[in-house]
């Protein structure tokens, strides 16, 4: 045995002895704190390596199944498109359902009225005028002066007609005047439109109590509108002792920009006062 062989044998014996000692120390539990400390440090590194390996494996798998994924993606995109169109159809059905329920509700509230549903097809292009066009006209029995309502109340009245369309002057137009009354006190006044979709109730006699939130209804005076249609709700009262009348700012319950379906009251004819 030469010198280097002898060194190898010595190293082998030392390592075997260390291994045996390690096993014995481990079995005796003397190495546990040291093992734990090392593992504690190793775990994050293991995690990073594991993640990287997992990622790499996933990448390989992905690359292998690229064609299959592309096909699946196409199928899913198609499915999403189908579902979207179904959602749109359901939403439309819901809107229609709501509109029909509103109509039904309106008929329950005002059973005496014969209502003709009409679609709102256009708005006045001017910022100063409040008109809408509906898709029902003289061919459907609509005449000038016909009253148009929605479930939330009075929308306006027809001012001009064609065969299959009508122009409706909204209650919020500055040229519109409607005889109204406060629901609680029955005090009368005139509701007229203001610039920019506002409504004012004028000519409320002094001494009449006007409260915020009071509902304002058509009074039926003058014969242009049937009695009892909702026009709005009091949101501000202007009362000065030196003036003959009080005034109230009203808010309509109708969102005029969102109205899609309105109802023409067919069995009400406005009175012509000579």
């Amino acid at each position, binding site marked *: 045995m030469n010198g280097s062989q002898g060194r190898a044998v010595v190293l082998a014996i030392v390592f075997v002895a260390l291994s045996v000692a390690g096993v014995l120390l481990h079995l005796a539990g003397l190495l546990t704190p040291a093992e734990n400390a090392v593992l504690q440090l190793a775990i994050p590194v293991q995690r990073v390596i594991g993640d990287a390996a997992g990622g790499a494996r996933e990448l390989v798998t992905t690359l292998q199944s690229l064609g299959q994924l592309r096909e699946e993606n196409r199928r899913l995109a198609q499915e999403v498109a189908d579902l979207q169109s179904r959602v749109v159809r359901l939403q439309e059905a819901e809107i229609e359902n709501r509109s029909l329920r509103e109509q039904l509700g309106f008929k329950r509230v005002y059973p005496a009225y014969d209502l003709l549903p009409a679609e709102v097809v256009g708005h*006045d*292009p*001017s*910022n100063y*005028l409040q008109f809408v066009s509906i898709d029902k006209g003289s061919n459907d029995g609509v005449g000038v002066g016909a009253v148009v309502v929605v479930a939330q109340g009075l929308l306006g009245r027809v001012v001009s007609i064609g065969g299959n369309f009508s122009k409706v002057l909204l209650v919020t137009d500055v040229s519109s005047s409607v005889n109204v009354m406060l629901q609680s006190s029955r005090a009368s006044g005139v509701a007229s439109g203001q*610039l920019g979709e506002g409504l004012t109730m004028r000519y409320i006699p002094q001494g009449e109590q006007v409260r915020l939130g009071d509902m304002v209804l058509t009074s039926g005076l003058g014969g242009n509108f049937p009695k009892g249609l909702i026009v709005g709700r009091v949101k501000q009262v202007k009362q000065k002792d030196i003036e003959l009348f009080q005034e109230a700012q009203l808010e309509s319950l109708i969102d005029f920009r969102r109205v899609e379906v309105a109802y023409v009251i067919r069995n009400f004819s406005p009175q012509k006062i000579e």
Partner: protein
Amino acid sequence: MNVYLAVLLLAGGALLQSSLYPYLTIIGVRPGIVLPMVVSWSIIKGASAGVTWGLIGGLALDLFSGAPLGVSALALTAVGFATNLGESKLFKSTLVLPLIAVFLASLAYDTMHVLLLQALGWDLPLVEAVTRIAVPTAILNTIVMPVIYLGLQWIARRSNRVRELELEW
């Protein structure tokens, strides 16, 4: 340009202005589509074309409006004519001046429109109408003007009957 195409474009503009009402409303007012078209065409083609477009565009708007026929036509014809009074090469060669033109034209149109409506019985307060509606509308019209102006300029070039207009920023 073929007058039929003008009618088609302006009627389309008026139809859009009427139908897109709920979607175009910003800060309580809507930008016009027809007015910037008339102003643009007047700048591109000259006063005669501006007047013609003003009349056609105004009549198209009146058809969709509850106001008597002719109110918008009258105001827009005047705007179509007046826009080109300050005609110059400078006016046509940059986009900044058409923007100023549409802002001023919009204020003039709205003021005329309100005065005409007042004369016809609408109880519109002029000062409030100008401050609350005309000024915001003029701002919105100025914002939509570049799209309409550049679009019509492209159509004008395509029609091959207009003077060469170079646009420089």
